[in-house]
């Protein structure tokens, strides 16, 4: 099974969307580095209709100039849900997408059923350093992102040099990511202090060896969101859906069972 690729118009801009499977809708909000259909999406699509909208500025999605910060991306995502006919959906977010998912659940509880946060950005804990991915070359980035930086997966997702046909998209994706992730100290502090307002049943999944957003940042989500559960994956870094797709998908599917 592979996701089909479509495009929806949001505010006159073309937004790239991958989708697959049948069942209750699951909105997958991608992170800053991987914004296409991956094997984990096939596993999730076994029981759900999985939608992977590509955020403005990433991949083939237009409208980057409308996004000045996370609040704009939240409003944009509501429009995407409207365009996809999703009055309400379970929402899964990874990294940057996890921050987006948490803000969405916080601000628009009527649109979010259950919430899954995977190594989500968005929390701040005094004394816990968050290394800067924008300062890292490819080798250092693989160390920060993957439990096994030498794995074929790490080299495939973070190559030393992007293949020529992907170079422009990679540069634009970095720019779109920096727009949202450059100076996050204040918005993270605010989100962390507001987590108690999130009503959605929440599963937090974290790679035990995440060196980009270390585990205490996931514990902050678990502590902050009432009733949240934290599952830690050993031998896993910042990207559980890609490093451990089977274990990750099983956790998510069990959590989302009606």
């Amino acid at each position, binding site marked *: 099974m592979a996701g089909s690729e479509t495009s929806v118009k949001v505010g006159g801009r073309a937004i790239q969307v991958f989708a697959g499977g049948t069942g209750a809708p699951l909105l997958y909000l991608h992170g800053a580095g991987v914004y296409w259909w991956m094997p984990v999406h096939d596993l999730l699509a076994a029981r759900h209709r999985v939608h992977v909208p590509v955020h403005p500025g990433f991949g083939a999605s237009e409208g980057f100039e409308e996004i000045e910060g996370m609040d704009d991306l939240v409003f944009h995502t509501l429009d995407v849900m409207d365009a996809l006919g999703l009055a309400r959906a379970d929402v899964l977010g990874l990294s940057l997408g996890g921050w987006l998912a948490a803000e969405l659940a916080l601000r628009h509880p009527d649109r979010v059923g259950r919430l899954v946060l995977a190594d989500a950005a968005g929390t701040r804990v005094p004394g816990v350093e968050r290394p*800067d991915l*924008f*300062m*890292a*070359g490819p080798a250092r980035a693989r160390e920060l992102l993957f439990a096994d930086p030498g794995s074929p997966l790490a080299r495939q997702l973070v190559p030393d040099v992007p293949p020529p046909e992907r*170079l*422009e998209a990679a*540069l*634009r994706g*970095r*720019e779109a*990511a*920096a*727009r949202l992730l*450059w*100076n996050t100290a204040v918005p993270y502090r605010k989100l962390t202090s507001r987590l108690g307002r999130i009503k959605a049943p929440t599963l937090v999944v974290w790679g035990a060896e995440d060196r980009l957003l270390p585990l205490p940042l996931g514990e902050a989500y678990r502590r902050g969101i009432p009733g949240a559960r934290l599952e830690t994956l050993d031998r896993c870094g910042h990207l559980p859906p890609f490093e451990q797709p089977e274990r990750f998908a099983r956790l998510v599917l069990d959590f989302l069972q009606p």
Partner: protein
Amino acid sequence: MQFVCFHLMPWPYLPADFEQRHDSAWLDLPNTLYDPSRGHALYNEYLDQLVAAERLGFDVIGVNEHHQNAYGLMPSPNIMAASLIQRTSRIKVLVLGNALPLYDHPQRVAEELAMLDVLSNGRLITGMVVGLGVEAFTYEINPTFIRERYREAHELIVRAWTEPGPFHFEGKHYDFRWVNVWPRPIQQPHPPIWIPGSGSMETIRFVAERRYPWIALPYSQFDVMKEHFDMLREYAATHCGYDVPPAQIGWPAMIYVGETDRQAREEFEPHFWYLAKKGLRLPREYMFPPGHTSVESQLRPSHVKRKFISLLSSWQEAEEGTYAIVGSAETVRQKLREGIKAAGCGIIQGIFQVGSMPHDLTMRSMERFARDVMPALRAEFP
């Protein structure tokens, strides 16, 4: 031809094993490597060199702005300009800062530059720069907004100098209800504005549209720089309807004049490598944070072809790329003559003190240049 004596004010005392111990001379280089006592003496030597340029007959002396590094010790070029203004009487003073997007209060830049213009009785030439990519990290400025902030701050400053205040400036990034600069600049309509740039299309369009003199950056092959000058000329001719005069084009060149070619190279080369391998040691990710240079500019062939000075491996390569103009007076005259013709420039921005070059060598080279090179070039390129 306008001759500028330009200074970077580098820290020349990085240890010999610096490259083995540090990946960068910028941003995260521990400031314990800076010694304030030696720094005091150094500032005074560097200022003496620029003050001497007035006596030697240069047209302009210049300083610039960089942050958190051993390459250049002028986080505030305005302070250096204030000092130079007090110690000179006729020469123009070029401030090839301020890095506008770094500041949340561009009114402060408008104020300080106006102060310098009044203080100097109209000898100020201002620069307005985007700042290096690494400087987005310095002040935590989102690099994807840097170009927008630059344009808006530039507009605010020029309007603050030229429109009666107070008025309300309404922008996207800046909104000031009370723009009302006291003092106003003495030069009318405002002090000259020179723009340095690495050759991004954004900057070339910006200077072409406003007819600002454009100074290239000195750290790539001459041919790449010349291509950028050609792009400026072509853009101005096709989009702005005018031919760019030489006075609008500035060639930044490291220059060293020795007694003979051989002696010149021997005296100059260690300091060149200090600059290339130590002062400009800077990881690619620090230099190009996302958004600082547009994707279009990054994909352009000249960007790809450019070989940054820190990547050079031999003096022969440096010579072939004309990264520096080094030799006897006769050789330097000849090389500059050829370069001026090829570049079509009317401004030579000479950098005489390079890297770890000591005061006496710097002064002797400047004196030879002023005596044996500059007059001949003035006669040939009035």
